[in-house]
């Protein structure tokens, strides 16, 4: 029998690419696949049950064989059976699915953190060491990696099928996802939320490397300054240190070791200072005023890019003592152009004319 070369090529192509599921390259993948096979098995059983009933009855009771239909009202017992059995199966799916969900979305505390910024139509990854990547992500294997992600414009969705993880990347809010790669290799990275014209070009690759290789890569591609160092520079140039100086008389709260602590807010609630809180406190300060401080901080909405915010967050995260702030304070005061600015409370940030009006009318620390 003659098979045309095109068809032959097609068959060969198919057989070599006949994977039914993507490579299992993360710690969670086997669990996900196990659940998937369980669900497939349930579906197969359900489908076969329906098929047997339909085809069986079609053969047994076709008109030629069964000219007389027997009228049957129904059967409560039978109906209860096929209510309860699916319900029980669905409940198993629910519990299993929920366990998996919390496993995927609750990062372990020892995870290394990488920041992801999504924009139309590229992924920017920022490693704490100052390595910047576009449309690719280098990670070490056998180590939990947490991604803190945000979008600059529209909804995106960060998906690595080989790791079985995916999370929406939302404008205006951090979302997180974590994984632990188990096999080295290069994997697909997709944006799965429709995001405009070049949605399908918003792809990249995830390179999972041995820890040694990762160290080498990290050393070779650093931009010179870590995110925290960039943040420190930004912290000074925005004049944050004029209030958050860490001194007892300062108008803003002390930021050292603030990360991860429980904070008492002015409206009486308590929050944990995580990445999302720090970002919000920079952009919408008045909703996040700490107990004992006046709502005098101007908003930095629209003045700092998402990357800048990440730098600031990373800087504040790493503030273990006031030493660095005071260092920064000294250097910025030494800088001729900024000496006046930082003392008046309105440094060279564009636009906070409102802040200028607000700040002087309020005493430094007002206890409400």
């Amino acid at each position, binding site marked *: 029998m003659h098979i045309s070369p095109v068809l032959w090529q097609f068959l060969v*192509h198919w057989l070599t690419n006949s994977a039914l599921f993507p490579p299992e390259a993360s710690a969670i993948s086997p669990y996900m696949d196990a659940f998937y096979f369980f669900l497939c098995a349930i579906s197969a059983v359900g489908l076969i049950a329906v098929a047997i*009933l339909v085809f069986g009855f079609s053969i047994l009771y076709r008109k030629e064989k069964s000219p007389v239909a027997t*009228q*049957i009202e129904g059967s409560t017992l039978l109906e209860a059976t096929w209510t309860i059995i699916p319900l029980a199966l*669905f409940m198993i799916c629910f519990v299993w699915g*929920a366990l998996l969900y919390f496993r995927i979305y609750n990062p372990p505390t020892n995870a290394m953190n990488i920041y992801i910024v999504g924009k139309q139509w590229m992924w920017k990854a920022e490693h704490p060491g100052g390595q910047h990547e576009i449309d690719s992500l280098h990670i070490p294997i056998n180590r939990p990696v947490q991604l803190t992600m945000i979008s600059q414009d529209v*909804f995106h969705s960060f998906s690595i099928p080989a790791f079985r993880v995916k999370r929406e990347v939302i404008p*205006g809010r951090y979302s997180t996802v974590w994984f632990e790669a188990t096999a080295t290799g290069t994997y697909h990275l997709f944006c799965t939320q*429709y995001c405009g014209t070049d949605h*399908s070009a918003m792809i990249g690759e995830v390179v999972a490397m041995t820890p040694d290789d990762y160290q080498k890569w990290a050393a070779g591609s650093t931009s010179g300054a870590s995110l925290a160092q960039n943040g420190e520079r930004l912290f000074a140039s925005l004049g944050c240190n004029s209030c958050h100086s860490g001194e007892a008389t300062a108008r803003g709260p002390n930021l050292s070791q603030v990360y991860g602590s429980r904070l008492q807010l002015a409206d009486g609630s308590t929050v944990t200072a995580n990445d999302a809180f720090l970002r919000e406190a920079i952009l919408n300060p008045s909703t996040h005023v700490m107990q004992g401080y006046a709502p005098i901080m101007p908003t930095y909405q629209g003045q700092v890019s998402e990357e800048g915010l990440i730098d600031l967050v990373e800087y504040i995260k790493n503030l273990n003592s006031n030493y660095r702030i005071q260092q920064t304070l000294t250097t910025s005061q030494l800088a001729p152009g900024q000496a006046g600015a930082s003392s008046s409370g309105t440094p060279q940030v564009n636009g906070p004319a409102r802040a200028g009006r607000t700040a002087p009318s309020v005493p430094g620390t007002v206890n409400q």
Partner: protein
Amino acid sequence: MSTIVTLPNQEEARLPKLSYLNSEYGLKSWLLTGDHKRIAMLYLISITFFFFLGGAFAGVIRLELLTPQPDLVASDTYNKLFTMHGVIMIFLFLVPSVPATVGNFVIPIMVGAKDLAFPKINLLSWYLYVAGACFLVYALLNGGVDTGWTFTTPLSTHYLNTHVITAAMGVFIAGFSSIFTGLNFIVTIHRMRCPGMTWFRLPLFCWSHYAASILMVLGTPVLAITLVLVMLERTVGIGVFDPTKGGDPLLFQHLFWFYSHPAVYIMILPGMGVISEVISTFSRKRVFGYTAVAFSSVAIAVFGFFVWAHHMFIMGVSNYSALVFSLLTMLVAVPSAIKIFNWAATLYKGSLTFETPMLYAFGFMGLFTIGGLTGVFLGSLGMDIHLTETYFIVAHFHFVMVGGMLMAYLAGVHFWWPKMTGRMYPESMSQLAAVTTFIGFILTFFPQFIVGYLGMPRRYHAYPPEFQVLNVLSTAGATVLGIGYLLPMLYMPWSLKYGKIAGSNPWQATGLEWQIQSPPLTENFVDIPVMDHEAYDYEWLAHKTEHEVTTVG
């Protein structure tokens, strides 16, 4: 408890002298009609048009996806294609499909009324449909829209410069058309039943339409106000959905899915009603567990309002919410399972024949089972993370909507075609079409489950080459599917003139609509009937045919 139903001798059947089709003539008598049957025909024509328009877009999409490279159309065009495909298929085809055509035609007759409660509002709803469609066609002709049918903010509000407002306006207006249809059905089923027609004597078709109508009336306005806010956001920049102004884009998702998830049930419930009628008729048997099937429709409608956030599991809803919504999603799957098994049990000890509507109904049962069960995959929190926004979800909702709803729609149109036109469609030809559709469908959409689990994202114009084989299969299947859908377009019009004359009850079905002449009189019944038997009472029917030589009406 046994019934022999003999099919009537159609050689003797004659077309009635007077019917709704020839009671009046002229375009005006159609465009200004208050007759639910004529409005149903108007809907049938317009819906068919938009089905093929939406189908044409799907064809181009599949053709583009034949190769991994973006080589047939540009990215923007591709985005517009799937947006217009989604918007047209959902708002102009699936939502009105069964209710506005078949439902409009038979519900008043089934309950024994001379018309729907509000004939003028019924006509208005068709005009609203047409007006909404005009907006969408205008948007289409002027370059199209590329928001995706979900109008996701902030993409739709701030980052696109296509005709979003026109399209949103079109959907807004079409939404009111659906509201008025639903309102009319609820009132008709409540208030217009003939003497003796108790709730539990209603055909299940009415129950499922009743349930779907509740969703239309209570869900659609939320979509309307959401679209109004999107339009205002685009024109005035109000910031309700804009994170830079303090708004929350997730609020849009909540409001949008509050309608759009129940909308899934608006689409599928009427289809389930058709299946109940068809399965019962062609097994000459009462539907197994009438009450369970009836209440499962209502249960789907009620639970349908509590599950919308399962579209947002990965979008950052709170964990607690995700848990609750996932649990409720599992619950809403149960009534569908009940229905499937009850239909299967209806076949037991029946006297089955396999005319085209029955073949489509079998197709529905198989495909809807797969579609429903894969819904459980997506409702399970953990699995949803990997599967959502991939081709798996595309395959899932096409199994439910196309495999389920479209099969049911075709089953319904074939089933009631003799009643609507007075003539039979060609049986062997249509059986061929049914089988072709089924094979084409499986070939088109089953590979998408696999390619989805492999991770291929939906709405991708270009994709990694290793997914090509499955995509080629899918496109090949789409060709078969297209042929399956085109066949009825050929033989249905043909049958209008050359089809065998049907007679009043060609299937020997029990519904009131089969007891009157085909096509019916404008007033449906000369005298208001009195219902004195249960629904699907084939013994009554056998008794009646024995005693009556000619048919009523």
